[in-house]
């Protein structure tokens, strides 16, 4: 692809400087993360004396000790998080694709108004709804369960995903729908056999971002989950800070931090291109 900076190829020195500067910024930005990784394998005493990557005292002690520090294996919290994320993904895929199909393809009264309302809910801070939701869930005894965290996903509350899917479905040629209609498909069949499968790239994005946002949704998890065995990975990490305050436990803290980041790293490695393209086309927040 040709762009503005094509001409820079004509000036190798200028180009070299640019790449050098970019590399410097990249190094500065990734230094904390690289240092986190290396420090999680260092003994406590080395962490506070080595600003670099001295791995002569390589140890797994931080991981072994940290894993059971909270009275139960850290894996419990990872599984709790994974379970909530899985349900959130299923809920979002189901509810948002249904709504998106109706907005993109079907004619119904007040469709423009409904679409506008959907867009407005995008801008709402969660804080105007989450407090009354908390009171309601508390009154039915659902606090400290996954229900308040997962149920809203089955009712298309994350309007961003509806918007993303509407945009995608509008790009699908209507010939497809019409052909299927000629073959005798009704709207439900068109949705299920044609639109849904064709939407796969967009649905992958919905799944990825559902996972990311749910994994990092600390605020909701903090207010709803109250007993340690129900804690998600970020809550457990936060508990870890309290549990180890007073003693010097940065090694363990780093090791467990890294474990909670691991799923995000993996996702990034697997779907880097999709993530970048998804953000670029829809403006989803990272």
């Amino acid at each position, binding site marked *: 692809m040709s762009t503005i900076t094509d001409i820079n190829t004509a000036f190798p020195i200028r180009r070299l400087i640019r790449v050098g500067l970019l590399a410097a910024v990249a190094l500065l930005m990734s230094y904390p993360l690289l240092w986190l990784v290396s420090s999680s394998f260092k003994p406590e005493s080395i962490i506070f004396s080595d600003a670099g990557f001295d791995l002569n005292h390589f140890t797994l002690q931080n991981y072994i000790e940290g894993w059971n520090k909270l009275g139960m294996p850290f894996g419990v919290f990872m599984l709790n998080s994974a379970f909530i994320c899985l349900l959130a993904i299923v809920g979002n895929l189901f509810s948002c694709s249904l709504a998106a199909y109706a*907005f993109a393809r079907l004619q119904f009264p007040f469709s423009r108004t409904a679409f506008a309302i959907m867009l407005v809910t995008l801008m709402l801070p969660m804080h105007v709804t989450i407090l009354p939701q908390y009171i309601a869930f508390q009154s039915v005894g659902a606090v400290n369960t996954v229900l308040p965290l997962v149920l809203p996903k089955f009712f298309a509350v994350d309007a961003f995903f509806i918007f993303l899917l509407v945009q995608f479905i509008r790009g699908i040629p209507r010939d497809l729908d019409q*052909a299927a209609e000629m073959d005798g498909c009704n709207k439900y069949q068109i949705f299920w056999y044609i639109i849904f499968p064709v939407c796969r790239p967009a649905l992958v994005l919905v799944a990825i971002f559902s996972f990311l946002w749910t994994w990092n949704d600390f605020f909701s998890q903090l207010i709803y989950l109250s007993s340690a065995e129900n804690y998600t990975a970020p809550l457990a990490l936060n508990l870890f800070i309290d549990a180890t305050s007073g003693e010097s436990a940065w090694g363990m803290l780093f090791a467990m931090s890294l474990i909670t980041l691991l799923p995000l790293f993996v996702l990034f490695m697997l779907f880097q291109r999709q993530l970048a393209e998804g*953000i670029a086309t829809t*403006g989803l927040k990272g």
Partner: protein
Amino acid sequence: METVQTSRLFFRRKPVSVDALAPSHRGEARTAFVFLLPWLLGLIFLTTLPMAGSFVLSFSHYDLLSPPQWIGLENYERLLAHDPRYLKSLEVTTTYVLVSVPLSIAMALVIAVALSQQTPTANLFRGIFYLPSLLGGSVAVGVLWRQIFGGNGLVNMMLGGLGFQTTSWIGDPRYALWILIILHIWQFGAPMVIFLAGVRQIPKEIVDASIMDGASPVQRFFRITLPLLSPLILFNLVMQTINAFQAFVPAFVISDGTGGPIDSTLFYTLYLYVEGFRNFRMGYAMAMAWVLLAIIAVFTAISFYASRFWVHYES
């Protein structure tokens, strides 16, 4: 899938009128209603009714244990006139937004322009710059920042090695907020990716013509790139600001949930959390949520109004 392939082959070239095929609109509306049902139920029971509830309760005193008591405008009066901690949180959050949003957008813009060429190197850099946005909202990165800018942290190890006097950056009310601002700027990757897509769509002819006319790289940046990207700048500005006003995790982790030292990192939503869920002043917290909504709405309205003077739309 099979249906798609075959029917596509057979019917593709035959123009079919939509009206001839469409069942009665009434029937279609009914179908649409079925498809929209989950969203509608969510809109009513998880958005509209809770909003109405929180609006009503924002005029009450409610501690979750005894029934709410109607106290009129008292919560709002207290917010605006009698709660120095609230005003402090407003000041802290506004500073955070006003400093970190423009800086991260500027950073995103400059880096996006530098990466405009679609080469393997540029895509590698894109990945490296984007990763922090993915991780930045996590508790784990908060933990990392705590160590890096703590008394014995990474930064002080480096500064100490150079012979500087060191202090605990997150423990000093003069610096703590700036540490959070740095964390926000560290996450410039998300807006950068959006700008990058925009930069790569700038037509080559425009650029070539300007080069022929003798425009310098700086002139091209201000006369071509910036105007063509201005809709994306507006978009990033609005979205980043809305998100930054609601920032919670970094301040919570760095200050142990207190907003300290001396309330210097008392973000708006952190104070809302403390009032609602630690001090059980639900009515008060709801009033805070409504003021936050108003702030965001006013800001968004101003941004869109002001945009007509600087955002350039291609006709």
